[in-house]
């Protein structure tokens, strides 16, 4: 019996060690774990550019810039709040980068803002490298009640020494802060040590005498003059005066040293929508959409109406940061930057049943096929588990002059589990 128990314990121990040994590092942000509806029907990020290439190495204190456009999908899911309160941020493993500046349509984004659905906004994020290591860096919007919605990310390695990081600012009162990360810390520690010393004094004052058994019996004997002596009362009274005096003097001195202070700023910034000529010229009607599981293919039967005065060609289908490019469209191919994360660009691209340009005023029905293993690896196929099995995406059309026209597509998606 005892041997069995020991054997079981040994097996459990070995299994635990095996689990520890095979567990890898979690380096990214679990973006693939977000439900597909959160990635397909909320934000569509495009034209994303980083000032450094994927897998680049930067030094501590170097700056990295992310720019691009973000489209807030019209068919925003009902189960999360509309984006009336959002915050432009960066998804990094905590403060490994410091956020130097963020702008939405050129408006500084220190505070939160609200945005309109169906609109496109330009964003810019400047970061400063702080903690050495290999980090996954994305642009991100925090949306109230929806949480963080991340854009495409690249890997950046920070080299150097964390101790060399410096972030200096100047206050409105002319004080030069050498390093924001260590500013005021000495003063904080000094005051903490002071009050801890006062507390330790008071505790030692009591602990130095017999404590429990003696005092319990003295309380029972109602011998309060022995429990709390006149000296105790005197020291206590002096401490009351001392503490109150310290608080008053410290505040008086602080007021003299910092006469100009402002409270935390909690206002909301207004970002006006800038009209986008790319929108509304091409309209899409979704007829059916199917996800063929064995082949990892999404096929969409749709009608395209070209309301522009130029012939347009479908160049790209993008959803949940995945890009399916029409490889026959030079304009679409030219928009894929070198260094863009490979795993987010489908190898096979976009297959279109009627690929010729759609003439002005023409409505054309066509089938679009987006095939890639990324549907699986990016864990988007789990959209079939949603109570509302639907998809959302953005389509990019191009005319001969290289102008781009964007259109949303949305609809139910039907699963095909095996070959018919």
């Amino acid at each position, binding site marked *: 019996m005892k041997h069995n128990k020991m054997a079981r314990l040994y097996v459990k121990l070995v299994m635990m060690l095996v689990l520890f040994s095979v567990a890898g590092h979690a380096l990214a942000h679990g973006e693939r774990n977000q439900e597909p509806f959160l990635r397909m029907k909320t934000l569509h990020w495009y034209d994303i550019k980083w000032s450094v290439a994927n897998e680049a190495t930067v030094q501590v204190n170097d700056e990295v810039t992310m720019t691009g456009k973000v489209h807030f999908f019209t068919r925003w899911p009902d189960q999360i709040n509309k984006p009336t309160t959002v*915050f432009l941020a960066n998804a990094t*493993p905590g403060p490994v980068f410091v956020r130097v500046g963020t702008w939405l349509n050129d408006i500084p984004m220190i505070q939160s803002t609200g945005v309109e659905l169906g609109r496109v906004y330009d964003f810019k994020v400047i970061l400063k490298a702080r903690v050495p290591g290999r980090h996954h860096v994305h642009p991100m919007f925090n949306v109230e009640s929806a949480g963080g919605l991340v854009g495409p990310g690249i890997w950046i390695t920070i080299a150097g020494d964390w101790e060399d990081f410096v972030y200096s600012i100047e206050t409105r009162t002319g004080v030069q802060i050498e390093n924001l*990360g260590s500013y*005021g810390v000495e003063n904080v520690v000094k005051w903490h040590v002071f009050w801890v010393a*006062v507390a330790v004094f*008071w505790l030692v004052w009591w602990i130095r005498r017999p404590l429990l058994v003696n*005092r319990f019996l*003295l309380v029972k004997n109602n011998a309060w003059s022995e429990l709390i002596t006149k000296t105790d009362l005197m020291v206590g009274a002096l401490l009351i005066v001392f503490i109150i005096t310290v608080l008053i003097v410290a*505040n008086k001195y602080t007021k003299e040293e910092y006469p100009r202070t*402002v409270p935390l700023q909690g206002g909301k910034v207004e970002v006006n929508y800038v009209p986008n000529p790319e929108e509304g010229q091409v309209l899409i009607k979704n007829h059916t959409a199917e996800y063929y599981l064995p082949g990892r293919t999404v096929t969409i039967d749709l009608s395209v109406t070209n309301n522009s005065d130029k012939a347009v060609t479908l160049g790209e289908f993008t959803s949940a940061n995945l890009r399916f490019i029409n490889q026959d469209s030079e304009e679409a191919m030219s928009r894929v930057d070198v260094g863009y994360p490979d795993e987010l660009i489908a190898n096979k691209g976009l297959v279109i049943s009627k690929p010729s340009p759609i003439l002005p005023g023409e409505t054309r029905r066509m089938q679009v096929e987006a095939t890639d293993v990324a549907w699986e690896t990016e864990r988007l196929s789990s959209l079939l588990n949603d109570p509302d099995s639907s998809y959302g995406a953005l389509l990019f059309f191009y005319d001969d002059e290289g102008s781009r026209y964007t259109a949303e597509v949305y609809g139910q998606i039907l699963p095909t589990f095996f070959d018919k």
Partner: protein
Amino acid sequence: MSLTAEEARLLKAISVPNSDAAKIVRNLDWIVVVVLLFAVTAAFHIHFMLTAGDWDFWVDWKDRMYWVTLTPMILIIIPAALSYPLMAKFGLPISGTLCGLCLMIGEWISRISGFHLWAYFPYSMIWPAIVIPGLMLMDLFYMMFRNVFLTTIFGGASVALAFAPANWPILAPYHIPVVHMNQLVNVADMIGYSFTRTATPEYLRFIERGTLRTFGGESTLISTFFSAFVCMILFYMWWRIGQFLSNLGTIPNQLKTMVGLEADKDEA
């Protein structure tokens, strides 16, 4: 209540300096002191982390309204409950000081190991609030008055009244105005903005979003006095809870009879 003959004999024995009995009870004291230090640190720290939470974690949550109002209310709960057994059973006016010191120990361990070394946040962003002066005043007033009603009024209130003044000397440097990207913020806002908290965006901050409408915008003062009023009630309430729990004794285990065992004798 007076001592039994045995208790009187015991008190006499342990009161002889350097006697074996005195040494034994003194050793017991030290064991209890160490256990108490760990227990109070763990209990008070987890309570404070779960309730004051972000207000105490981050410099850009330490506002004039919620932080000043809520922190003392949360702070007073365990010290008030503990003040009954320590004072009424042992004559020790140290519960606030003990809790305050233990909280500081727990907070700094957590900030250094968890927030700074593990999650890379700078110390300027994550320092904990000073809680000791108000809690000490609570102990001192309890000792001076040895009366729960006067302690409720003066001791309970002092936890809140001392909170903002104790922290302003360390917080004021972080409230100096800064203009960043042509926007007015203060240094604390700037620290919160710069050092990314991925899952805690700006809008999640429960801070004063509009000035309180009385007393010329003196939010700290209004918040402090409101908090002091609530702290009085909380002190009394939790002191009573401490009293109830300290005198609870034991409850006979009724389940024993259901499984055919002999019933416990009521010790209460």
